[in-house]
């Protein structure tokens, strides 16, 4: 085979590695192709001598510290949550089956709490109205400060979660 008919180096190297007899025969008869193949073989030999470096000595400890500080895997949380839900539902059904007197008392208590809550809400509204009419500007300033601080905190929290 003439040198003019030499295959592309990629075809030659991959073909010879794949056992292509025609290319192997060409490599045996063509000094330049044989030299190119030999160069790749030598490079492969050198590459096979490289090894992975050892991680830092405290690597495992650092990983396990991060694992310990991390929230539990989602799968376990979902399972635990499902368990709690099932137990709660079972207790609820149990109480329901047991009798009506307990539930009647609970209903009355709940209605009373709602009425008291309404009174508290009205009083709170009156208080806020009085505060607004006497000190509107300081109230707005403090509200703005609290809102800005909260938003900044949330932004920092979101940023640190993303980078983690």
């Amino acid at each position, binding site marked *: 085979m003439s040198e003019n008919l030499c295959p592309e180096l*990629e075809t030659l190297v991959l073909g010879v590695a794949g056992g292509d007899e025609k290319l192997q025969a060409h490599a045996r008869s063509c000094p330049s192709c044989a030299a190119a193949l030999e*160069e*790749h073989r030598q490079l492969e030999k050198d590459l096979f001598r490289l090894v992975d470096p*050892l991680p830092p000595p405290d690597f495992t400890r650092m990983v396990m510290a991060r694992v310990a500080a991390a929230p539990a*895997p989602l799968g376990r949380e979902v399972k635990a949550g499902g368990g709690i839900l099932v137990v709660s539902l079972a207790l609820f059904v149990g109480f329901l089956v047991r009798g009506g007197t307990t539930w009647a008392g609970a209903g009355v208590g709940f209605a009373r709490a709602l009425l008291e809550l309404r009174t508290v809400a009205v009083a709170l509204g009156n208080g806020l109205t009085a505060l607004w009419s006497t000190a509107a500007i300081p109230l707005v300033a403090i509200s703005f400060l609290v809102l800005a601080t909260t938003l900044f905190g949330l932004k920092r929290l979101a940023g640190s979660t993303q980078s*983690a």
Partner: protein
Amino acid sequence: MMLASETPSLPWKADVVAARRGDRSAFESLVRSVQRQVYGLCLRLLSSEAEAAEVAQETFLRAYQNLGRYDEERPFDIWVLAIARNLCLDLLRRRTKMRTQDVDEMREVLPSSGANQEEGAIAKQEHRSLEAAMSILSAEDREVLALYYVQRRTTKEIAQIIGVAPGTIMARLFRAREKLRRHMTAAEEVQ
């Protein structure tokens, strides 16, 4: 006593199952079994010891948090290496410029199995030239070389880690090796 035929074909499976139940020592055993490969791949891709350690730690944290999604029939090391590789590529995309100082540090740090005392200074110099030429290659070239030659992984395993067809790996390897050869030849001519 366990017979050879009883040897588990999925050695990581018991630890994965235990770790899913919250057994941290089982997870630690999984970390120890693959930490060198994970850190090694990170270091070759990132060229920075500090970043490699950080990303390798993050890799294991992600693995721990996503153990529920892991299919234990697949090799654990392949799964973790794929996570590490994705995190490294994310970091490389975020980088604006290559820090040559770290590359120099890496050349000093990465070891060679052949560069022992008997082989002496010439072998060490050759090893350094190889590492230096490798550090100039793209991350895609470095990862395929590291996985095939350093970690001795099969083309099928590499394809699973980087998410490409197995048939493309040999061609990728050739192209990466050819670039490496050209870099090394150019460096020798300069000297």
